[in-house]
């Protein structure tokens, strides 16, 4: 019974254990270079997926600009560490300071874009975040050579390659702790209540704008942290990497892992990164084109299988959660967390837009405007 209290922290424990094992390995017999790169990549992907899940899964808003926040973190954090290099050297202190700076600047961006953008819902918010990501990318691409390297990319001090992954693990564990703690507090409940029913949340006295902003800021903070880690794992960062395609890649991890499920995000991000890297090393030469093809087919099949209303009964029969519940002899209808199956999550892709030919607006808008003002 005692263990139940720590149920939410299982994944954190496991990751800590893995981190310790790897650290011991690396201190002892040493790790392959490629293992270290892979670890760094996976950790960055997991941080990104978990932080995006906060917005998409728990808040229920679609964000397509996560890579934009990462970009801000990567550039600002990387630049900061480059500036501090003469003073702090390539030390852990420099690394930690840059991570904090990068994260904070990304969080600030999250607040700046979030404050006005959160008035918008669903698709509109999605396209605004997408636009934000592209704007950030474009701005960093065209900065001067001295400031952020422009098209040539920003040179960042690559942190001691043997140890970066340890710090990345620590950052990941902190991310997990913060997100888990947040989601299991009254603030987290407020955020999920907005996802489930915004109107009822307002009527229950939840300050919707404030909590949306919280979720947005925390999410972009960790995206920024992931960005700084990314800039430390590379010598040279180029903003063209942070386009909407990358944001979508993160979104795919979140969706496949199960929206609103932190563990799912961790597993999906790990697997996708691992498989992609393996594909890239196995399928070379003429086979390289098969990478994307396989990826696309798997993606489509998983989504259709997991969501088609026609396959509902089939899924019920083979539901993993229920199977587990059977093994544990739990009542499957009892839940202890806010993790829900993702086809039930009402991500607010707003559906009340009309297909219209009318150029003029009708009067109904006036009511709406009142509502909007209220919503502010």
């Amino acid at each position, binding site marked *: 019974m005692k263990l139940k209290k720590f149920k939410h922290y299982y994944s954190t424990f496991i990751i800590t254990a893995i981190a310790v094992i790897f650290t011991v390995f690396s201190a002892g017999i040493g790790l*392959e270079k490629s293992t270290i790169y892979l670890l760094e990549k996976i950790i960055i992907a997991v941080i990104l997926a978990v932080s995006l899940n906060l917005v998409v899964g728990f808040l229920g808003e679609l964000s397509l600009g996560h890579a934009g926040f990462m970009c801000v973190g990567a550039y600002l954090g990387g630049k900061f560490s480059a500036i501090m290099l003469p003073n702090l050297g390539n030390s852990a202190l420099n690394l930690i300071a840059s991570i904090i700076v990068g994260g904070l600047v990304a969080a600030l961006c999250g607040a700046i874009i979030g404050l006005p953008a959160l008035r918008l819902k669903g698709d509109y918010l999605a396209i605004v975040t997408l636009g934000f990501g592209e704007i950030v990318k474009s701005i960093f691409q065209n900065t001067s050579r001295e400031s952020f390297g422009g098209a040539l990319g920003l040179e960042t001090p690559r942190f001691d390659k043997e140890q970066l992954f340890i710090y990345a693990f620590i950052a990941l564990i902190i991310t997990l702790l913060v997100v888990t703690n947040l989601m299991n507090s009254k603030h987290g409940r407020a955020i999920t209540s907005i996802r489930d029913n915004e109107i009822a949340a307002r009527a229950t006295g939840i300050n919707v704008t404030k909590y949306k902003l919280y979720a947005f800021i925390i999410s972009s903070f960790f995206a920024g942290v992931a960005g700084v880690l990314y800039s430390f794992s590379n010598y040279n960062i180029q903003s063209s990497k942070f386009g909407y395609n990358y944001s979508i890649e993160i979104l795919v991890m979140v969706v496949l892992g199960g929206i609103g499920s932190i563990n799912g995000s961790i597993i999906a991000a790990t697997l996708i990164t691992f498989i992609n890297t393996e594909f890239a090393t196995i399928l070379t030469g003429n086979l390289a*084109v098969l990478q994307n093809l396989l990826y696309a087919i798997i993606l489509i099949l998983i989504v259709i299988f997991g969501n088609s209303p026609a396959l509902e009964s089939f899924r019920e029969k083979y539901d993993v959660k229920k199977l587990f519940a059977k093994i544990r002899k739990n009542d499957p209808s009892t839940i202890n967390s806010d993790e829900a199956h993702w086809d039930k999550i009402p991500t607010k892709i707003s559906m009340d837009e009309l297909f219209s030919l009318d150029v003029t607006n009708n009067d109904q808008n006036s009511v709406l405007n009142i509502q909007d003002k209220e919503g502010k």
Partner: protein
Amino acid sequence: MKKLVKVLCLIMAIAMICSCFAGCGKKGYTANNTKYVIGMSGPLTGPAAIYGLGVQNGATLAIEEINANGGLNGVEFKLEATDDMHDATKVATNYSSLLEKGMQVSLGCVTSAPCAEWTNLSNEDNVFFITPSASNDDVPKYDNGYQMCFADGNQGKAAAEYVSENYAGQTIGVFYKSDDNYSNGIFEQFKENVSKDVKIIETVFTDAGATSFDSQINALKDCKFIFMPIYYTPASIFMTQAKDVIASDAVYYGCDGFDGIDAIEGFDIKKIPQQVSMLSHFNSKATDGKTAKFIKDYTNKYGTDTLNQFAASGYDSVYAIYQAMSAAKVDDVTISASDLSDKLKEQFQGGFKFKDAVTGGGNDVSWDANGYVNKTAIKFIIKEAD
């Protein structure tokens, strides 16, 4: 009891995961080599594939020739090529997997942006590389990196000199890609070095807008000389769109990115009325000497699609490594990358002259103290004006 089983399972699972990842690091990867392994990373797929494939083919051709002639003291060479899709983030993985495959010396990366990553990574381990085509000025910034092609800055300077000489007092146009490493690098140096009495009309495009150049063409329509430090695909689109707008006696002048423009499927360069020329170190229409032989052999084996200076440069880079290694009297096939690098550095810093090059007009090639190449540049006219 049940808990215990669970915990045990968990620990086993973790141990299994870790064993997948963890190998025995820090060992000598080259200990089991039976051939000298040359590594490279380049775009073998994707829009820039023509460059990567050119280098790969050229290098393979050179290695086959060397091996057929008995290799280096009887030891053969082997090329390990990895695909980076012109994406710098893939380089670290490629680099480490190459090291684990026993790479002793390398051709670095084919394109500039990924090569920035390679430069730093290879410096960590002291792996010698000579890139056939990554032209960024920073590529030879450490003593283990050399270029077979002209650096961007030098290309920009050469173009600036040419323009200052021939177009003083006139208005010329520049069309470059503002979000591209290569394009920017050349343009910056060009702008810095061009004489002040040449008036420049700058136009740019970006990755996202690389389909329609109407407004840029409109801005450049009165220029008689247009400098285009860009890759050939957008250049071909530009030329097709501009052929009726820009005066037919105008000159398009590009850098090594133009190479291969006449080989694009469906793009008929003869229909472009303007002169298309570029700064190059390889004359793909050469009819005599070593260059002609290379062209013949290459065409027989791979066709003309990728016959460009990248292929020639890849071919030359392998020969340069071979000549330097034989000059340094390397005789241990399991020599570590770092030891080999020290030997090669000694050669390259000690006035090593690379002979029988197919690039650089057949003259000897040498490297200056900064690692930049010294060879003959030619203004190569791809197509005369009508």
